[in-house]
């Protein structure tokens, strides 16, 4: 399938170039985000009746993992409200670049942090406390507020969107999985960028800001670090930026060589499996251990959680590729072949989320009418009874996701293996075994 340039449509191009449509969405999102913080802090402590839990962990999560990431890649990042206050402060403006910008520290992020290890750590920190985070409104409120203030703080010290690029726990996995999405932002002609003076897409101009994601669009080859903020469309003086529709997982044809990205794939894969067992399984002792943060059982849970992600899964993966004939060092083979785990992990999360979301979606109507759990009935839906949705199609849908993910992963493994001239069999067997485990956990 050839690429289709969406920005050829004048309507789409103008909508993306203008700051106003994006600003309207930003403002709605920011109000919703601040309301979620307040609801978490002052609303009912009963999670299933609190806006912060229901709208963040059920509604937003469902949209993110089932729609936004698979189909729009970093589409969520394009409208995420978290970096806004910090960015407005950093820029000294809400819309177009001002004549005089405020003097913040504007530092480069130190080189040792210019990777996604901090995002891996921040995700794991939240993941280890997720049983409390997902169910306790004031903890959700505190974490949401902490992310907002961290983004503001980093904007005053570092240039561009340092929080989004290097710390956001959600942005890390969205970036990883955005490589599978059928949408991309790319340049049209490389020579135009080579000859372009001043590189306003990266450095900014009177028309807009330099790339907030610290990416030079002329060098973009994959979606991972492009936040789809559309700033380069506004600043490019040569109309050389396009938003394209493309085949799914186009970026995965060129495997990654980075260990931080490889381990991100393992972190996401392992977390989906652990959550499927702990949260959706019938074993009460696992739930007790995950929920009772600080207890000895929780420490055991945390050690097992980290061991699965950093030792057991990568260990078996490495054993599989250890004896494959190849001139490349093991580390490079490990990083390249782990690309196959990206579609597998995404579909594991889809299968896990289907169960969680369909079971709890009926809380959304009740929370809409009574977001703080104070007895309101704003839209007449406050007393909507809890009832799982579409339970009859849940198992077939999960099978479709998991088996589809396995096929996708196997095809990706073949491409990655071809790229580095090695065999894909061990990776396919590895993916097959993990899929069997996930099927057993969910069905």
């Amino acid at each position, binding site marked *: 399938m050839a690429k289709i340039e969406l920005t050829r449509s004048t309507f789409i191009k103008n909508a993306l170039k203008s700051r106003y449509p994006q600003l309207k969405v930003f403002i709605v999102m920011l109000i919703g985000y601040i309301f979620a913080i307040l609801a978490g802090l002052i609303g009912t402590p*009963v*999670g*299933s*009746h609190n806006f912060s839990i229901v709208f963040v962990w059920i509604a937003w999560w469902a949209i993110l993992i089932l729609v936004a990431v698979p189909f729009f890649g970093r589409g969520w990042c394009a409208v995420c409200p978290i970096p806004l206050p910090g960015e407005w402060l950093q820029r000294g403006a809400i819309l177009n670049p001002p004549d005089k910008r405020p003097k913040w520290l504007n530092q480069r992020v130190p080189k040792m942090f210019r990777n996604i290890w901090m995002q891996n750590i921040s995700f794991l920190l939240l993941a280890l406390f997720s*049983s*409390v985070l997902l*169910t*306790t409104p004031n903890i959700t409120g505190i974490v949401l507020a902490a992310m907002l203030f961290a983004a503001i703080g980093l904007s005053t010290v570092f240039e561009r969107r340092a929080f989004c690029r290097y710390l956001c726990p959600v942005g890390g996995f969205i970036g990883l999985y955005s490589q599978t999405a059928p949408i991309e932002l790319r340049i049209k002609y490389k020579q135009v960028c080579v000859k372009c003076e001043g590189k306003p897409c990266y450095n900014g101009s009177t028309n807009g800001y330099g790339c907030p994601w610290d990416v030079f669009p002329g060098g973009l080859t994959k979606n991972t670090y492009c936040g789809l903020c559309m700033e380069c469309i506004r600043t490019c003086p040569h109309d050389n930026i396009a938003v394209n529709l493309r085949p799914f997982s186009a970026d995965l044809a060129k495997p990654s060589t980075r260990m931080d990205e490889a381990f991100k794939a393992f972190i996401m894969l392992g977390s989906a499996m652990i959550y499927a067992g702990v*949260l*959706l*399984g*019938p*074993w*009460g*002792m696992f*739930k*007790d251990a995950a*929920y009772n943060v600080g207890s000895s059982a929780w420490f055991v849970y945390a050690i097992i959680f980290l061991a699965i992600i950093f030792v057991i899964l990568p260990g078996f993966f490495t054993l599989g590729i250890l004896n494959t004939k190849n001139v490349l060092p093991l580390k490079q083979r490990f990083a390249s072949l782990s690309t196959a785990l990206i579609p597998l992990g995404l579909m594991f999360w889809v299968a896990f989320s289907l169960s*969680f979301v369909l*079971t*709890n979606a009926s809380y959304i109507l009740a929370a809409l009418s009574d977001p703080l759990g104070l007895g309101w009935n704003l839209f007449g839906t406050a007393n909507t009874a*809890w009832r*799982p949705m579409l*339970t*009859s199609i849940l*198992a*077939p849908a999960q*099978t479709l996701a*998991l*088996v589809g993910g*396995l*096929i996708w992963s*196997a*095809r990706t493994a*073949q491409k990655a293996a071809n790229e580095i001239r090695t065999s*894909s*069999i061990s990776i*396919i*067997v590895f993916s*097959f075994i993990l*899929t*069997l485990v996930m*099927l*057993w956990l969910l*069905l």
Partner: protein
Amino acid sequence: MQSRFLLLFLIMAGLVVAFAPLPAPAVAPQARTFRIDARQYAYSPSELKVNQGDTVTLQLVSTDVVHGLYVDGYDVSVEADPGQSATLTFTANKSGSFRFRCNVTCGAMHPFMIGKLTVGTNNWLYRSVGLAFLAVVSVNLSLKQKA
């Protein structure tokens, strides 16, 4: 031509694995009773197995706060007050694996208070394993064809 035939064969094989009727073991229906203790946030026992056609009676005993028990797929439920028991009876006429879960908000981890009821054989799991195996075979065959 050969690859199209192979693709058609694999699709047919997938449909057979997913939908072919399987013989159900002929077991005379029985009346089965289970006492289930419910506490925050677990059932004990949390995994139940019955045969298709059995009349199942669940005696739910709540040991701390009010708990419920809702069976996915059967759409039946029961609630028990603290220290009390309540009974739910239904005919397990659908085979497969079904989650049962608390349907009364009982605390923070309430949405994850879950148990598992297996009626007869969990055929869908075996079908899914078969589909996964077929998927791996088909990808490897396509690999060999390209080579």
